[in-house]
């Protein structure tokens, strides 16, 4: 099995686990998690990010800030799979005796910050990146933001701050799934051209298919030897709900988990050979 195939296999496993934990809890942002599974799998299993499960607070680790905290099921499934905490905890997601719920929580091993209120994690990532620069440390800071999150003015405050302070150790990925809770972004307030916006904020911009590991690899492989002072933004075009047809690109499925028969159909679709 090739490197790429292994990552694809892992993505399938993580989607299954995300579905299971959301269905069991009867809640969770399933489609927001599905759009960023490949991105997270690449970071955690693709050797792009340095971390040590046994020493998860090791100061020399790279930091990962999940600014779109509603995608916590995807991150929790991965952290559980990597044994940051007993995997059994996934069964209690958002339930009595559970140690975590729908939005990301900083006290879960492997998690850096509490997020869920949007537009906040990205600035924290910029602050971390600045601290590493000041300390002459080579750690990288990875941050995943949502495209809907880009409506928050604080995203652009941090974007200016990061490029002004030459934070080329800050690698940000936008999960560009084109959807917010109620509608498509271009219907709400048009975000396009996102690429031009970030470029004009003096960021190094690349645009990729966020479900294609070859393209993710092209975007991430040089992050430790970049020859620019600009921070990097990867616009990852994705499908909200990727892997499950009836929740894909469907605004009204935001923040919901399928029940009963629909949960079975979702499971079946996830395990088709050609997802």
């Amino acid at each position, binding site marked *: 099995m090739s490197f790429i195939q292994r990552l694809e296999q892992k993505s399938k496993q993580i989607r299954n686990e995300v579905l299971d934990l959301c269905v069991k809890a009867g809640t969770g942002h399933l489609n927001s998690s599905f759009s960023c599974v490949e991105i997270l799998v690449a970071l955690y299993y693709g050797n792009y990010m340095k971390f040590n499960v046994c020493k998860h607070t090791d100061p020399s680790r790279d930091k990962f800030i999940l600014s779109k905290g509603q995608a916590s099921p995807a991150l929790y499934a991965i952290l559980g799979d990597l044994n940051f905490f007993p995997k059994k905890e996934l069964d209690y997601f958002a339930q009595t005796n559970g140690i975590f719920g729908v939005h990301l929580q*900083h006290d879960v091993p492997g998690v850096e910050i*509490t997020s869920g*209120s949007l537009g*906040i994690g990205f600035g924290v990532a910029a*602050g971390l990146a*600045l*601290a590493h620069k000041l300390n002459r440390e080579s750690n990288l800071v990875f941050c995943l933001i949502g495209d809907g999150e880009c409506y928050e003015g604080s995203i652009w405050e941090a974007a200016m701050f990061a490029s002004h*302070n030459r934070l080329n150790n800050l690698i940000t990925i936008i999960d560009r799934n084109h959807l917010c809770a109620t509608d498509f972004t271009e219907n709400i307030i048009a975000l396009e051209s996102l690429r031009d916006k970030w470029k004009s904020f003096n960021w190094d911009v690349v645009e990729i298919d966020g479900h294609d590991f070859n393209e993710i690899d092209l975007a991430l492989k040089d992050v430790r030897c970049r020859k620019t002072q600009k921070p990097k933004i990867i616009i990852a075009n994705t499908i909200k709900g990727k892997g499950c047809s009836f929740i894909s690109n469907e605004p009204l499925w935001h923040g919901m988990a399928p029940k009963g028969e629909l949960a079975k159909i979702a499971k079946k679709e996830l395990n088709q050979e050609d997802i």
Partner: protein
Amino acid sequence: MSIVLQSLSSSQNLQDLQISQISQRDSFWNEMYEIAKKDRDVIVLAADMGAPALDKFRRDFGGQFFNTGIAEQNTITTAAGLALAGKKVYAYAIAPFITLRCFEQIKCLLAMMNIPVKLVGVGPGFSYEDSGPTHHTVEDISIMRILPNMKIFNSTDSKTAKGFARLSYECVNPCYIRLDRQLLPDIYGDQDDFKEGMKTLIEGKDSYIVTTGNMVHSALRIVKDLNNSNMKNINVGVIDIYKLPIDQNLFLSKVINSQSIITLEEHTLAGGLGSNILEIFSDNSVKIPVKRYGLNFNDKYCYKYGGRENMNKQYGLDIETLQRSIQSYIFSIV
């Protein structure tokens, strides 16, 4: 009918109090300069806000000072990131903007995760007296004191401002330091350490004015005249509360034998110091009557100008009105 000005480290009498030669912000940043000289992890993020003493800081510690621009939300988030990486961060702006403008960031990061970023706000109450209600800071104590982990330091004079630099530096929680914009008399001395969070400035046998910030100065004047002039031998004291949350046991031990408490603040009544005192009394079944003096806008923000005293007059918080009102209240109770 004696006024007992407790032996603060200085032996000043009330009459001798002089307007400070140094602003609270300069006093604070001068001390931070000394701290930052020894600890290169101290970082100042200024949201387009200065002070003469900060110019020196910026000049000498270039890598420890960043101007984040008029972007308070990002100032808090980047401060939190720096602090998570071990930096000791001070975020500095005009008081309403470093609190209300970025309250969500303060709540979700500093309070929820107990990240020890220190917020430094200049201009509590009406101290931006010429600037209108956007620059008045009269709601911040109400909203900041509800945050878990948050410690509030409200400066009384340049000495408290200096002391708060060291106290906040040593504090493992997020802090909000409120520095008055105007030059006020120095009540305290250089030896005071401010660790108790409150100070009985004048002992009161019958009653206390419990106050904070610039209103401490008003209270001292009012009490001096009241105790000197009243015919009933009534003795009123003054307690300066400069740190919140209030140490309840210490506070109750000071006032438990009083017949009444008067609270005085240049802050909205809803949720402010007086409100806090009522909560403490209620929670501890203390039945001392409380009379609150503070701002009640009655649905109309303050668009008055012409100096702080003139503005306070609109709300019955000028010295003359307070003197009359407090005297009549005390006489009605005691």
